[in-house]
């Protein structure tokens, strides 16, 4: 990421670094800019630096180097309570000794707002998350999902322009989580709030965000809209981390424009699309999504390279069939097919031919 146009940026990280112990960098040279109203997700494994970035933005951690800008001005020296950033915490952090209404009223009180204004705003915020009748309850009397809504309402009640969310749905069960994903996205878009969302759940990241920043090793590995991230990963980490992925390793044999031929370590040759490779002789990891692998003989492209595969396991998942194959020495090669009337059912032990479109098979860094 080169320094982006700062006029349009609402939130901007400019060459930000962070170290806790003075020996290792947790965040290495972070550059990121977000326009107003964007829903951006920071996605990455634990320890990748995403939460640290969020905490620096909130003001609970200071950047070791670099600037964090909000609306064009540096906020490095502004204490958290003056930043006016709403935040939803992983465990909600609702104050247990206050009622729901008092929790919501708290940010308004510290802003010295009058009583009647406060009450009106609290009511509106509670209605917004469909919790209008719960003002008198204590947080402990609410279910996890209800607490989540209250935490959201509290972060929004003082009308911040920027809201940060630190794995807010981590403690909910699957169904509730999916419902809340939808709610949060809807609220964020309706209110036009800029949102930075941290999660390690890639489904959450893909379904909710305008853009996703994939973090690893203190760097943004790729910053892109969800579809691009899934279909066009720029390196093998992103390919591995987002969605299910099959990896084969080999050496580039030839490159011709939009296609190249890879010689796998097992000696077989396959077609691929060169992404991070340009010269024959370079080592590469090729990445292919399970649903793009074709094993129906009738649909295989006669001109494309095919490769032999042995069926190891069949997993019935209801809507889809999943097969584990052994391909070019990789025993964990997964292919999927829709449970359709004409679906081919493979039996473990048989050997088949598989193939794919060169464009679906990306030759990435080794």
């Amino acid at each position, binding site marked *: 990421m080169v320094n982006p146009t700062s006029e349009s940026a609402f939130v901007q990280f400019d060459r930000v670094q962070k170290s806790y112990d003075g020996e290792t960098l947790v965040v290495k040279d972070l550059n990121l800019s977000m326009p107003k109203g964007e829903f951006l997700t920071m996605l990455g494994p634990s320890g990748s630096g995403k939460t640290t970035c969020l905490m620096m933005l909130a*003001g609970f951690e200071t950047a070791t180097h670099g600037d964090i800008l909000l609306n064009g001005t540096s906020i490095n020296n502004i204490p*958290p309570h003056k930043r006016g950033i709403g935040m939803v*915490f992983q465990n909600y*952090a609702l104050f247990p000794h206050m009622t729901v209404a008092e929790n919501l009223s*708290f*940010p308004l009180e*510290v802003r010295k707002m009058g009583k009647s204004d406060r009450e009106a705003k609290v009511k509106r915020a509670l209605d917004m998350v469909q919790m209008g009748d719960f003002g008198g309850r204590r947080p402990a009397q609410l279910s996890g999902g209800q607490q989540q809504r209250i935490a959201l309402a509290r972060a929004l009640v003082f009308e911040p322009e920027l809201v940060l969310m630190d794995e807010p749905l981590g403690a909910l069960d699957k169904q509730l989580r999916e419902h809340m994903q939808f709610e949060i996205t809807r609220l964020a878009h309706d209110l036009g709030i800029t949102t930075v969302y941290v999660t390690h759940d890639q489904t959450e990241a893909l379904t909710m965000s305008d853009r996703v920043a994939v973090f690893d090793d203190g760097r943004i590995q790729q910053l892109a809209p969800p579809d691009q991230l899934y279909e066009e990963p720029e390196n093998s980490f992103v390919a591995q981390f987002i969605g299910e992925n099959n990896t084969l390793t080999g050496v580039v044999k030839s490159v011709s424009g939009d296609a190249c031929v890879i010689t796998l370590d097992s000696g077989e040759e396959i077609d691929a699309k060169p992404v991070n490779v340009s010269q024959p002789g370079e080592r590469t990891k090729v990445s292919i999504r399970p649903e793009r692998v074709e094993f129906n003989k009738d649909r295989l492209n006669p001109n494309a390279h095919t490769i032999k595969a042995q069926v190891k396991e069949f997993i019935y998942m209801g809507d889809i069939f999943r097969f584990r194959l052994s391909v070019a020495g990789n025993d964990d090669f997964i292919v999927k097919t829709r449970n359709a009337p004409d679906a081919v059912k493979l039996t473990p032990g048989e050997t088949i031919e598989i193939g794919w479109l060169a464009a679906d098979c990306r030759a990435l860094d080794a």
Partner: protein
Amino acid sequence: MADTTANGPVLAADGTPLKQSLARSLRRQKMRALMLIAPLLVFVLLSFIFPIASMLFRSVENGIVQDTLPETVAALQQWDEQSGELPDEEVYAAFIRDMIIAVDNKEHTRLGSRLNYEETGMSSMFRRSGRAIGRLDPVEDAPFKEALIDIHDGWGEVGTWQTIKTHAVPLTNGYFLNAVDMQRTVDGAQAQPESKQILITLFGRTLQMSLIITGACILLGYPIAWLLANLRMRTANLLMILVLLPFWTSLLVRTSAWKVMLQQQGVINDTLVWLGLVDDAARLVIINNQIGTIIAMTHILLPFMILPMYSVMQTIPPSYTRAAKSLGATNWTAFWRVYFPQSVPGIGAGSILVFILAIGYYITPEIVGGTKGVFISNRIAYHISSSLNWGLAAALGTILLAAVLILYWAYDRIVGIDNVKLGG
């Protein structure tokens, strides 16, 4: 809703009522549990419940007068103690008969000591008269009134007989009256003479100083507990050792160390004089008075405040304070409105602990308290080991116990005992 059938209660598979069957299956478990706790139960019963009950009883028990002088007590019933006249010959004769038996059994001195708590001089009167009475014959030497007054003038005073009659009841409120600076007299409960009134003052002082000590412990302990709960593990552990170190030192050593520190030629005064803050001629008096007791006891009881506070603070996640700040609260508001209310259970637990320990403290006030800084417990100890007035000691102890229970109850009503956490 009970799961009943149309014919009555639910039956277990073998036809017995389900409730009965359940009770039977639980009985074995209960017996096992009871057996496991039995040794402790017996121990607690013998070492805690029984002594307290015995103390409570001793504070009202007063059979000695009636047991030693049964005939006299019966004869005194006819005598009007308000008349201002001496009892008649019949009482004296009964007294001689009782005393001869008592002298034989060497019980008259004990009775003398008992009555001496009420009327000074009784002890020596009984002891001296005892020898002379022992030589009298209950039949031949009659009449006894003149003879007895000859033996000791005291037997010719109305007050003596009033005292005997007043305290001839088997259960008395006399000790409790004494404990609150009153006495049992012929005219009912009366205030003690002013020169003997010290116990109410002492109770008041004990309460007041315990409150001051508790307050001082809260003020000093809170920041330490906060540091312990918020510092990095290594630093916190080191700090914790410093907090616990006094625990591993003998109480007596610590108190004596304060004596060295606080006396007029002690470390603190010397330092202040050397710094020029205090004139050599006007060294601070900070020992053998209330200040000394407060300083030493605050130090000794501090860990009891810090530990419960710490264990509560440890459970307050830092995200609460962060949330408060992100919502716009300054550091102080975040602390006062969000952190502090959640740490109150720790303060409550620590305060109860420190206050109850302080109110019954004995060794430290004894050593550093002088005369002005002693507690009610020092008085109790005095009555147990020096004056041997165990009844009064028991009454004082009972009042102390009742005071603590009442305070505990009040605390429960105001703060709620559910809000007290001694750990996680």
